[in-house]
């Protein structure tokens, strides 16, 4: 595996392998010294065209715990010049000698472009509306840790699916791992054509809540009402918000996930956010382990050369 650009296209074996590797790194992170020398001497660059301190720090922590060096480029610190082409920025970073680039960009497909221009391994940290593979992996890992397996797990993804890279990546990851995925959204917030997707699509949240094992809430952005996609946030909350009343009809062992940060009072009621069934903190904690697994998988695997045979003690 040279890059991690998206989850769509990874098969069950590859996904399971990454989750198993995440188990090993979770064990490392539980130790008093949560560090291994595995990627010593390697350099991981984060290239963030969209501000996202949390995700960037999560990747940098992951790299450091693998003993890699990190370089950080972000629009926030103006080390990324607006107007400088993505290609020039990528080439400049590569010339500094990096082994992996984690890129987040507001345009779908930017990591694919980057992978064409650089020799380094490319990790997609979120591209436009398209994919956020490490988020889906940490979500799958959180669910696997809680339920043991995702086979047959009933998951409802609720909210602005059309503009959500988290939703898309989760559709592929969860369904490949055996979950039954239902999308819950008004038509205006669904992608134009999901006919070939391995999902059920409904626009009535109350109809699905009593039967699901997982409710995955997406952020609802304020701007959507301005674009005539929903009449108002109030109406959105009334139809699709996870209110206290709705949370009460969930099965007792059902859980709630959210990619963060939460709009309390919109997609989730504040008291529901504090409910122990809401696993948001687990998701965040698992983020570093998942990202360590991804970096190790991409940089730790070399050409299979073999001399010396087995039992190389």
């Amino acid at each position, binding site marked *: 595996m040279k890059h991690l650009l998206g989850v769509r296209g990874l098969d069950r074996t590859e996904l399971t392998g990454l989750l198993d590797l995440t188990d090993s790194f979770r064990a490392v992170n539980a130790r008093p010294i949560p560090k291994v020398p595995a990627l010593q001497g390697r350099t991981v660059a984060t290239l963030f065209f969209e501000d996202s301190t949390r995700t960037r720090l999560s990747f940098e922590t992951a790299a450091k715990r693998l003993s890699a060096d990190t370089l950080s480029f972000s629009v926030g610190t103006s080390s990324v010049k607006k107007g400088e082409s993505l290609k020039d920025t990528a080439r400049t970073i590569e010339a500094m000698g990096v082994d992996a680039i984690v890129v987040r960009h507001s345009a*779908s497909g930017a990591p694919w*472009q980057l992978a064409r221009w650089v020799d380094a391994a490319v990790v997609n940290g979120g591209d436009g509306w398209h994919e956020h593979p490490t988020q889906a992996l940490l979500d799958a890992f959180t669910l696997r840790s809680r339920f043991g397996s995702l086979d047959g797990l009933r998951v409802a993804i609720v909210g602005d699916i059309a503009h959500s890279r988290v939703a898309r990546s989760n559709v592929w990851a969860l369904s490949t791992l055996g979950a039954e995925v239902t999308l819950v959204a008004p038509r205006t917030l669904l992608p134009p054509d999901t006919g070939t997707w391995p999902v059920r699509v409904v626009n009535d949240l109350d109809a699905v809540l009593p039967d699901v094992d997982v409710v995955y809430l997406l952020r609802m952005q304020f701007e959507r009402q301005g674009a005539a996609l929903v009449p108002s946030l109030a109406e959105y909350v009334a139809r699709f918000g996870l209110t206290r009343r709705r949370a009460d009809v969930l099965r007792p062992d059902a859980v709630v996930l959210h990619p963060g940060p939460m709009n309390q009072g919109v997609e989730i009621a504040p008291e529901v956010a504090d409910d122990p069934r809401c696993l948001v903190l687990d998701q965040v904690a698992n983020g570093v382990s998942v990202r360590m697994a991804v970096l190790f998988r991409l940089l730790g695997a070399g050409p299979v050369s073999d001399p010396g045979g087995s039992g190389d003690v």
Partner: protein
Amino acid sequence: MSEIVLLRGGVVVDALGERRADVVVVDGTIVAVGPDAAAGRSGTVLDCDGAYVMPGFVDLFTGVGEPADPTAETIATATRAAALAGCTAIVVAVDHADPLDGPAKLHHLRALATDAACAVVPAAALTLGAAGERLVPMAELAALGVRIFGDPHGVEDPTVLRRAMAYAADLGVTVALDPVDPLLAAGGHMHEGAWSSLLGIAGIPAEAEELGVGRALALALRTGVRLHLRHLSTAASIGMVTAARRAGLALTADVTAAHAVLVDGDCADFDPAYKVAPPLRPGADRAAIAEAVRAGAVDALASGHVPVPAIAKDVPFAEAAPGGAMLPFSTSLAFDPIGCSPTGAVTVLADGPARIAGIDERHGGPLLEGRAGNIVVFDPNATWTVGGSAHPSLTDSTPLVGRTLRGRARHTLVDGIAVVIDAEAQR
């Protein structure tokens, strides 16, 4: 000294049919067409064995870069590419960065075109600055020889469009439109459908073109203007055009080669080379476009050549400029894979566009004694690959990247002068 060119041993194909014949051109005019017509004569011999001898192709709305942005293309490089495709004339697309909207710009374009490899026919905008508000001096430009008027990307205000059409109808000139509803298309980068949903890219719905076509047809009907619809891309548009023609409307339409050959799924890797306007559509639309070309349901197959500077494609898909180099490749596509018959190819590549451009006295039309020597010798079996030295355009990006093409212009004669010999440009 007479300039004599002997086209020997080929099969002449034009609107009259196919026949084995030589063609003799003296000082820019055809003087003889017939079996062995070249026998016993001396002059420059161009071998046509195994090839079709056809009226030179005419490309509609070729993007030429100059004067707005000569880094992406110049008239010299664009016409060289067109000549290599077998074109003896191009109609220059109105550039949205610097629209031709007055006599001064017309003279400037003509001055830049003096060394062009083929004939350069101007088209003008419909409104000043293509801003969609005030009309260009249509009568003045028509008197200077402009026959086609149209704003790139359409006119938003239907009242303005209607008045422009009415005014143009008086003058007998053609209004050429990009039929698209600009508000529905706004913010989109590829066809809105299954692929855009998967890739997370804002889409341009097919309805945007259907609304544009419907509106244009309704307005044209009442004003009686000669209407040309540019670059149709959906099966529904073809249907509407066919119905309107049956109802008697003075209507012509073109499609570009890319829309008959490529689909929206080709954007799967986010390669901006496949970002074009109008966008590539799904397979059913592509098939309908290809069939319309074969059947003559559209009047012309245009190249869709749009020069794009490299930096405008070295960016993420949503930020990339649409377009790419389609010359000198697009004419080959008419033969393979679109599958036109030789006479069908002559219709959509030469006769149809020549009539639309108003240059059918000297371009297109049957190869007969007395007609101008604008001729292409096209070898339907030559194979070649897109890229490398076959790529004279300054624009590197092309949605045909990596393709092997079957069929290639071997020689091109413009006004009796061989500008392309053995698939190599002479200037």
